[in-house]
């Protein structure tokens, strides 16, 4: 049973019901989906290198940044027809951004797979001022927009690609500490 609004992470397995397969990853160390061989996916990889050329001629496509890959992905999905299966692997932030692009293109839940993220750095949106705080590994973060110390709630918005960050008024924190001390 799903008790979380988190993305449905699971090890990637090539889906035989697909006609075309596209695998996107934010670093080359991410392994290929299980079952590659029966069918070979197209592979797009972020290499973080300004000299990389996205040559589609042979095999793997190398992209200079995650942003470059996601823009290319949006363009590709806009032209795709039924039968594509998309696989994504990488950091939590990258996967969140892939989900936004895939959802915008109208891919259904059975057409996209997300590998378990290779890091714990989450995106946190400030519910008070809408600023997106990237790469949050701790349970709290000082909002870049309004300076509030945000507590990260275990509530994820697929549409925003981020967890909810909510501040706690100082008086409330002190009162809760005092209550905890006095049992």
């Amino acid at each position, binding site marked *: 049973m799903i*008790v979380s609004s988190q993305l449905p992470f699971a090890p990637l397995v090539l889906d035989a019901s697909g006609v075309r397969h596209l695998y996107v990853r934010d670093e080359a160390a991410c392994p290929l989906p299980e079952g590659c061989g029966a069918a070979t996916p197209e592979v797009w990889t972020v290499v973080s290198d300004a000299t990389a050329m996205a040559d589609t001629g042979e095999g793997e496509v190398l992209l200079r940044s995650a942003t470059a890959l996601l823009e290319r992905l949006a363009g590709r999905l806009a032209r795709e027809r039924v039968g594509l299966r998309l696989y994504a692997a990488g950091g939590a932030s990258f996967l969140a951004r892939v989900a936004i692009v895939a959802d915008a293109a109208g891919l*259904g839940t059975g057409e996209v797979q997300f590998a378990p993220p290779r890091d714990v750095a989450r995106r946190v949106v400030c519910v008070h001022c809408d600023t997106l705080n990237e790469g949050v590994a701790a349970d709290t973060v000082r909002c870049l927009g309004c300076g*509030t110390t945000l507590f990260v709630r275990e509530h994820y918005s697929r549409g925003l690609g981020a967890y909810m960050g909510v*501040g*706690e008024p100082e*008086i*409330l924190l002190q009162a809760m500490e005092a209550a905890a001390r006095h049992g």
Partner: protein
Amino acid sequence: MTVQTSARESYRPPYQVTNSAETIMRFPFPFPEDIYMYSMNVEPHIRSGPVAAMRNTFDIDEHYVAECAEKARILQEDPKRCIVLPHMREAEWDFVELAMTTLSDQYPQHFSLRREGLDWHWVNRLLGYEQSFVFGDAGTLPLPPFEYMARQMQGDFTLHDQREDDLWMDGGMVTAQADWSLKFDLGMSFRQWHAPVPKAAEMGVFDRGLRFLLMLQHEKPVRRLNWTMTINPRLDTSPENFMVWGADRASVTPENVADKVHLRVELQTLYRLPRSNAILFSIRCYLMPVRDIMRVGKWRKRLHRVLRDLDPALSSYKGLDLYRQTVVDFLAPYDDGAPLSNGIQPDAEQPENVLAPAA
């Protein structure tokens, strides 16, 4: 129900909200038993019920004008409290039709609707609006259809698209919410937007609830009551403004508890919409201070028992931990432990005077 035609009340500091005897007696007190735990507690939303607030399709009460004014102010401050995704246009018109036809039928003294084919004429005497428009043509209304009508109604509304055997929160106007955010939950599935609620998922409440709602039929709406507590008569207890109102939870004392602490009840009603096949979720919020609940014997005793024995996980989730014991201690002397009748209906015709009036 008598409706005040001017907004003297204030749902933000300095707070000024008072409830007449009639409003107290029609309050949808949420506890049919002495103990509370999550349940489906869904019943047909028919035009009868244990209290008057439940006997209309959309309930209008004496706070109508003030609540609509507060809603307009919140939307002015934060336009993201109203978002409707483009594929919900048909559902918007479904909502306009349901709201205008039922309000004009059930409150002819306040609202009227004249229909000649697609040429409609709407009058809202309480807010002083009069509008001719072409049903289905958004360009003939001053605002998008859902926003135009939801601004003229008490409570919050969300629109849910049904696809892939799930319900998706694809629109709404949310200005009087118990700590959840429309802009954050927009586009979420039924289980996703319920994810923060403790215990209920493991009890299977959401799976059963979803299965039930997917089968909801046109013209057979359903309802349930939900509750939490709010400090001060504040409609906008949103996460967006938590830094503004959250500290209130630390302000309750034995001296101010009767006036500060409010039982916040949501009369939740759900409707299948005929053209879009979407579901309209109406969340009508009632705020009643402990002082007014005290005036119905059954309610003050039952509130004492429910709060005293509440599951700690629910108390924490609802944000009651800092003041629950203060409320229980205050109510305890007024509970003789006598057995109470099942159901939420009051045990008297008129409110009694238990406490001296507020200073």
